[in-house]
């Protein structure tokens, strides 16, 4: 028994880092989605929520944490994808059908990741670093994100792209959330099917919560 092992470079260790960072990001998107829904309470509630988040110095810690998690998730996933692709240099001429097939959702995880990466960059440009409108509530001037959201979601191109990106995010989560437990070793004949359902429900809730905004502002507002 001589082979050397290093957790951080091993496939299992790297999968676990991808899983843990992915799980943290899943919690972030859930929180983000719930925050977005405040827009249905009132423009003021939404704007003040945004102001409360960005006006504390803790936002820098949170942003640094998010960037780190996102960066780790992406970089290690890219590294693993390269390893996986090297592990099968010659592809099969035919893909399996029926019982032995792999679902297209799991085959396209990397492409889903790329779509989400592009979306996140554009999303930050549009909203975080986008047009700044201001509004004053009780003497406090805050950023009028509500107005920006309404404007952006009047553009059909942006609405379609946002919708597609959120469906892709949902697919990504539908694999990821339930997969975390298997990657960390919590498989169980009775509980694993329950985890799978929880993962699917989580993905659906996040996805639907996010697309509610563009659909509402484009078709109803």
């Amino acid at each position, binding site marked *: 028994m001589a082979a050397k092992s290093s957790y951080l470079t091993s496939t299992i260790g790297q999968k676990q880092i991808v899983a843990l960072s992915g799980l943290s990001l899943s919690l972030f998107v859930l929180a983000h989605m719930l925050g977005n829904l405040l827009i249905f309470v009132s423009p003021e509630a939404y704007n003040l929520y945004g102001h409360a988040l960005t006006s504390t110095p803790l936002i820098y810690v949170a942003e640094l944490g998010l960037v780190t998690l996102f960066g780790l998730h992406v970089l290690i996933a890219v590294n693993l994808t390269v390893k996986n692709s*090297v592990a*099968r240099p010659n592809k*099969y001429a*035919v893909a399996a059908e029926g019982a032995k097939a792999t679902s297209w959702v799991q085959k396209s995880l990397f492409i889903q990741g790329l779509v989400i990466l592009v979306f996140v960059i554009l999303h930050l440009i549009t909203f975080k670093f986008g047009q700044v409108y201001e509004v004053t509530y009780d003497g406090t001037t805050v950023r009028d994100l509500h107005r920006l959201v309404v404007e952006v979601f009047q553009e059909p191109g942006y609405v379609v792209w946002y919708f597609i990106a959120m469906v892709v995010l949902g697919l990504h989560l539908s694999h990821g959330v339930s997969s975390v437990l298997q990657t960390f070793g*919590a498989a169980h004949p009775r509980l694993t099917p329950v985890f799978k359902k929880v993962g699917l429900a989580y993905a659906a809730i996040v996805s639907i919560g996010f697309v509610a905004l563009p659909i509402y502002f484009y078709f109803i507002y």
Partner: protein
Amino acid sequence: MAGTAGKALNLKLKVWRQAGPDKEGRFVEYEARNISSDASFLEMLDVINVDLVKSGQEPIEFDHDCREGICGSCSMVINGSPHGPDRGTATCQLHMRRFRDGETIVIEPFRAKAFPIVKDLAVDRSAFDRIMQVGGFISVNTGNAPDANSLPVPKENADMAFAAATCIGCGACVAACKNASASLFVSAKLAHLALLPQGQAEREQRTLSMVAQMDEEGFGACTNTGACSAACPKEIDLENIARMNRDYFKASLRERSEKS
């Protein structure tokens, strides 16, 4: 053929032919005529090979031995599925009645960098042997057979260890995985020792060593797709991979600095 229920099938085969490890491979089409539906898939290839030899051509190279689903020799990917379309069987247990008359069957070798092609459909699976050599055994002296029940093993653990030990090391898990990962094989080999008292002494070191060797051989990572378990002729459970993942995590945390 009188007296048998078998009917004759005519099939078109597209078989991967590759003269050697460093040679260029390609698909070659063959007509398989008058094949009994009672024949096994390997017997069908035997019939083709007899014709090839008679006409002075090289027969199709493929691995086979026991032909009863227990040795793990036969491999090949049939229409994209390792060991063919049925679950819980090896290629030798696949019968031609599973195919329709006139059907085209695409036959490829297991494809993975860690399983280099030797010739045609035969691949070199010695990467699995090297993984076993770094820890797939018990080297501590376990003494003579103990008195019955002096070493308690819960029935459930005995069953799970036995199920894991049914792995025949055929490599279909690697062939089926989109990443050519060997996780199911390695986890089965780890599990059948990790679940029994005799395997405890070396459990952590065994996990670290076998996982390190698995990575060293160039197998991919696990995406938890379950394709391996679906293709496994012994239907080894994905739960074993979870056990390996948690044992590896724990062993990595507890690992002491290099003893040199």
